[in-house]
């Protein structure tokens, strides 16, 4: 178990390093700098700015400085918000994003598990058809469309919930539904097909032949074995949640990291773009590590193989 985890941890650190290097190189190679304005700044002012942010140093010196800083938890200064560092901004904007992501994922799991099981248990009946149709609709509905629809119904027409007022009671409900819908639909699909496959296997027939109750066959024999592919999907699901959070935070005006990322891109605030990219990558690496641990706990073949 320990060597397996160590290997995965090293792999995760490797991914972080690759992403840090790629983003650094990509952003340094960009034409046009963050301080280009319509009217050119006097050369001596430009020189001062470049000296302050070490932009006049050679490429590899800047790179080494950046990586050393990241290793020590320093993500550099923000070009746009001159009184705050990137680490400050991340500290302020991460909590709303994490809260939103956790709520959305819990919601998705809570809805997808019963739906997936019901669809497989009543395969090819109306429940199955209804579940798969709803799941297809969910996969096809863009986040921003669903968000706008929910705001229109529940905020503008019914007046039940306020939109765009993060922190007010109930303000997390609509964003969590919007963000959770897509993962929920995918989980339902996956669980259904995974369960159907397991239900066709020999040991299920054996269990039924022994006279085990159908509910026991479904929940004890089949479901446990069908959850492994679902665990595998959790890693990619985190990536989907992160991508979705850009849009959902934009639509619902949530002061989270995704919204800051989008504005940082339009502002050409490169250290902020790099910092947020790295934080996202770190979150995903941690999520995948957790999935690996769960996976090897559930399925002993993973540890040895």
């Amino acid at each position, binding site marked *: 178990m320990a060597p397996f985890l160590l290997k995965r941890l090293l792999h995760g650190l490797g*991914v972080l390093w*690759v*992403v840090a290097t790629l*983003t650094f190189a*990509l*952003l340094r*190679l*960009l034409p046009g700098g963050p301080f280009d304005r319509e009217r050119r700044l006097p050369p001596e002012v430009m020189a001062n700015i470049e000296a302050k942010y070490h932009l006049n140093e050679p490429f590899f010196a800047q790179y080494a400085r950046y990586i050393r800083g990241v290793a020590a938890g320093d993500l550099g200064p923000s070009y746009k918000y001159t009184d705050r560092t990137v680490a400050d901004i991340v500290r302020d904007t991460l909590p709303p994003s994490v809260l939103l992501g956790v709520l959305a994922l819990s919601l998705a799991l809570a809805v997808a598990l019963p739906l997936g099981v019901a669809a497989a248990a009543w*395969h*090819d009946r109306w429940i199955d058809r209804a579940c798969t149709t709803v799941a*297809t*609709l969910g*996969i*096809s*509905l*863009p*986040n*921003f*469309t669903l968000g*706008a*629809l929910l*705001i*229109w119904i529940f905020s*503008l027409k019914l007046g039940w919930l306020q939109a765009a007022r993060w922190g007010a009671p109930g303000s997390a409900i609509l964003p969590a539904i919007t963000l959770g819908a897509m993962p929920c639909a995918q989980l339902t699909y996956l669980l259904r097909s995974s369960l*159907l496959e397991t239900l066709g296997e020999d040991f299920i027939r054996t269990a039924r032949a022994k006279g085990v109750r159908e509910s026991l066959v479904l929940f004890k024999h089949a479901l446990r074995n069908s959850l492994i592919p679902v665990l595998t999907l959790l*890693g*990619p699901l985190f*990536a*989907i949640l*992160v*991508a979705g959070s*850009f*849009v959902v935070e*934009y*639509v619902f005006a949530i002061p989270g990291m995704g919204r800051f*990322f*989008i504005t940082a*891109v*339009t502002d*050409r605030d490169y250290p902020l*773009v790099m910092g947020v*990219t790295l934080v*996202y*990558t770190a979150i*995903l690496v941690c999520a*995948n590590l957790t999935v690996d641990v769960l996976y090897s706990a559930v399925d002993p073949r993973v540890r040895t193989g």
Partner: protein
Amino acid sequence: MAKPMRPRWRSPAFLVSLAFILFVMTVGFLAPAISPYAPGGLEESRMLESPGAAHWFGTDELGRDLFTRILYGARVSLTVGIGTALVALVVGTLYGLLSGYAGGAVDNLLMRIVDIFYGLPDLLIFVLLSLFLGRNIAGVLIALGFISWVRFARVARGQVLQAKELVYVEGARSIGASHLRVLLRHILPNIFAPLLVTLTFSIPAAILAESTLSFIGLGINDPYSNWGTSWGTLAQDGWRAMRSYPHIIFFPAMAIFFTILSFNFLGSGLRDILDPKTRR
């Protein structure tokens, strides 16, 4: 238990979706001929009209006919969707073929790279790349292709791993066919079906990504939009006016939704037709 099955291509969802996609393609292609107004035609006297006989989908805050703009927008969505999927198909398939066929250390290394791409959020990669490639249709197409090629690489590799153990590959090799010939003439045609299904599912994914990016203002940014404005940009225009004029966001949002939905139904229909093993 087993009732007589009708041929799978006759499933209503599959046929309706196919018809809808062909319809959208046609109106996008013929937009200049069939649209009732000019795409950039501003008319101050007709600002923010509700849907009616003169303007089926109403007009926006500059008096532009929304029906016309949606017809033209079909070109952008479909070009980006299909173009991206084709780019990804070619790049990803070649990569996956190579990786799976080579095996060993090469395969290991190539798949590590795929894993990194696969694990990162697609919009994150896209936004970083689009800083570099610019926000025109070609740049968006390449950046989106960069996101979706990994799927084809994974599918192609998995298929090659199975196919290269089969007897016909050994047979081809033993009569002196080169590796390249075996890959392209013998293996590729045999693994085409799963790639086609992946292609069909990649198109809606690309349309979704493109419209989402346009909605948050990071998509195609082309002020000379006589060729067409993305449905995502139209939805963004409507989003800002949603409180008072919900029709402006309603129609582009529905266009996006039904197009993506049709491609998804088409994909699952194709999978059922091409792979008789999957049960419905």
